[in-house]
């Protein structure tokens, strides 16, 4: 029990400084720019793009702008399932990446696989847990064991990849 409590340290995310994308009033310019982004996105995806890390940066952008994920999906036009896949390291498609680049103002060139590690030496056991709302202390203790076990398996899987 104490072991779990001790391991609850805080993850310090790298801080990205997202710039707010410029609003261009010229429509034709915007379309041209979008085409350019799509081409750029296609190239980047071929060269091994780290979607997990891009997702983390996107999350920071969202926080800075004080928005819900729902608003990110609605404003960028990228579906919730695509965003969820990105969190799992499954890349967005070309259009999705282009749309998110435009929305966030992030430079996708900074997110090549293997350039910088997301790993941190500090860890927090992060969960969503679905269980009965009234737990006895014994039940809580046992569930804590299961959470720890699941965490170990998850860590192993991440390390294997």
């Amino acid at each position, binding site marked *: *029990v104490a072991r779990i409590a001790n391991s609850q340290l805080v993850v310090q995310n790298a801080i990205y400084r997202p710039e707010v994308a410029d609003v261009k009033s010229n429509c034709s310019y915007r379309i041209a720019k979008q085409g350019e982004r799509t081409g750029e996105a296609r190239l980047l995806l071929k060269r091994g793009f780290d979607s997990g890390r891009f997702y983390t940066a996107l999350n920071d952008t969202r926080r800075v702008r004080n928005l819900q994920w729902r608003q990110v999906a609605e404003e960028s036009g990228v579906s919730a399932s695509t965003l969820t896949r990105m969190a799992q390291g499954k890349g967005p498609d070309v259009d999705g990446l282009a749309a998110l680049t435009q929305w966030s103002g992030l430079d996708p060139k900074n997110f090549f696989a293997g350039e910088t590690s997301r790993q941190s030496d500090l860890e927090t*056991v*992060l969960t969503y847990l679905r269980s009965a709302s009234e737990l006895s202390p014994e*039940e809580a203790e046992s*569930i804590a064991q*299961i959470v720890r076990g699941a965490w170990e*398996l998850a860590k192993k899987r991440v390390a294997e990849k």
Partner: protein
Amino acid sequence: VIFARGFKKYAETVAADFRGELRLTTDDRFDPFVGAESLGIPVLPLEDLRPICESMHFARVRDGRAFSALTVICEGKSLIVYNDAHTDTRINNSLAHELAHALLQHEPQPFANGVRLRYREEEAEADYLAGLLLIPNLVAVRACRDSEKLASIAARFGVSDQLLKYRINVSGARRRVIRTYST
């Protein structure tokens, strides 16, 4: 629970988009295992944890009613563990609930041992989206119109009668049925 403005509509979009990606029509059953695979989220039965957990704790969690499922998020990547001692309909609901958390990109919480996390709006949101994934609104309307078929519709979609009734209640199916008959 009162949802944030716009949440229900958004959840409907998310469910419809995701079911669409899985090529499910209104009449098709949502299989959470297929859904998880599409999202790249591994799903493990509790049984897989037996070798690495103390047997007393393992048995208590497995045989107790308290534990349904959990997601751990390690370096941004999710992994779901569910209680395989539960019935299929309950497992479907638990897994759909976990997938809903992932789809709504809820902020995972640091696990606090022994301390119950307060009931958060996120839980209600995940329940709502899970319901939509399992039972689309049109199915709820159909079940409401033909209450004799309630059990067979529930079985067909892999959910409990209770969940189907919940969907009839929250989807506004009743109002829709009355409106249909009165016009």
